[in-house]
């Protein structure tokens, strides 16, 4: 988690990383991102879904590495089902050796998933296939698209 005492754009969680430094080529040296990916033997890159200076910055399609599904604007409208069921979607890392993005999928963050924030709240818990999960929000953000869940699977 990137901590800030203000509602800054870069104050986010690793599941939906971002930066306040704008879009463009993401190379080591940018600040504000919350995740670094090493796709080959040379490069370390930033994963970021959003940029700009505001508290809830816009999604960027010009990023080089990112995390699905938070990057997808469709999740803004995803709510629970009529029976109260929620769907979790796996946190999926994507990126490319050159911009634009969306040219490769690296894999999933095990135990991390998106879940709708509709009628949801941080620290809620739920069970899927016998595994406990706990819900988090993206620091100070609490819109539908800002939530994520982590498995509490005993090792």
């Amino acid at each position, binding site marked *: 988690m990137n901590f800030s005492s203000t509602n800054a754009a870069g104050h986010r969680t690793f599941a939906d990383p971002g930066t306040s430094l704008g879009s463009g080529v993401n190379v080591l040296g940018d600040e504000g991102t919350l995740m670094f990916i090493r796709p080959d033997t040379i490069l370390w890159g930033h994963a970021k879904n959003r940029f700009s200076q505001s508290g809830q910055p816009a999604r960027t399609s010009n990023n080089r590495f990112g995390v699905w599904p938070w990057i997808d604007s469709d*999740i803004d409208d995803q709510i629970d089902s*009529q029976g109260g069921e929620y769907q979790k979607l796996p946190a999926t890392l994507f990126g490319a050796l050159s911009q634009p993005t*969306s040219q490769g999928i690296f894999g999933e963050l095990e135990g991390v998933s998106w879940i709708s924030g509709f009628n949801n709240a941080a620290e809620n818990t739920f069970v899927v296939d016998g595994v406990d999960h706990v819900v988090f929000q993206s620091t100070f953000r609490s819109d539908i698209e800002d939530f994520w869940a982590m498995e509490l699977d005993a090792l």
Partner: protein
Amino acid sequence: MGFVAFQQITVTDADDVLNTLDTFCAANGWTTNNNSVFGNGRRLHMQKTGSETVHSDLFVNLRSSDPKEIHFNDSSNVFHLGLNMSEVFTLADDPMRQGESGTPVYPRDSVGAGQARGAGVRFLSPDPNFPANQTAFMWIFDLPDLVIVYLEYSPGRFNFFYFGEMKKTATFTGGQVFGASYSYEVTTINADLENQPRFMDNTNDHPNNFIRVDFDTTTDRWVQNHTSGSGFTALQGLIGRHLNRFFIDASPNVFNGKAPLIISYIYVRRAGGVQQSHLGFYEHVRHINMQNLVSKQQFSVGSADWQVFPFRAKGAIIGGIGDDTLSANRAVAIRRN
């Protein structure tokens, strides 16, 4: 269980598609309610108790006609093959208008006299009649039930239809699914235009995929998969406002050339037409970008065997075959074991 049976077989004509399917399904758990001559072809009605659709059996109704004579409600176009699903079978009723006395309601409610509801397959080119001796690929799955038919009407070119039920992830009345390639072909094959076949997906103007779902205050509905707009519609597949689109565009992977198998989730727009809730997904089938695959190619992932088919033809684009861009390579992979 999942995979039940597969067969690859030559079908002599449109009627033979229904007869062959009847024999195949009857040997693998489906009950035939009727298979008889009707108009320029045949009518076939089958039934099975599903595993997900607990409120009603799966009733499927099919028609063949050559010369083609099946009119659907949304178009003046005429089809060789037609299908829909219902929650009852009545021999006295039109084969494409089963259970129509009020409910369930299809999304396009105005149907002319003698017209059909549902989805169809037709052939305009290379032959306005049903091409003889096509190769048929037929699958039967259960848990949940799904029957898929792919027809290779010329080398590398396909039509398809399917019926059964989704794997539910939510609690609701319904769950049946069916669809067919709308099958519009003139001199070129287009993959990204209205009228074009999209497996587990739909165009806005020509519904060819349907889902049975009761939601909110709306009951007894068959809804079409709709890619945009508002209202009580379902969302699935690759096009437009759907999460799957991301993965098809992000593959094949530039690092290793592999394309991920993409789950086709199904959503419904809630009352108000903006917010969406998940309903389920298609078991036994995945979307895939087939840029680095060829039609009918089989591959394995662990112990699972898959076979890939294009929506219509690999590389089909506006203007003809040959482009290898992203949109031209949308395809499905179907389990083979």
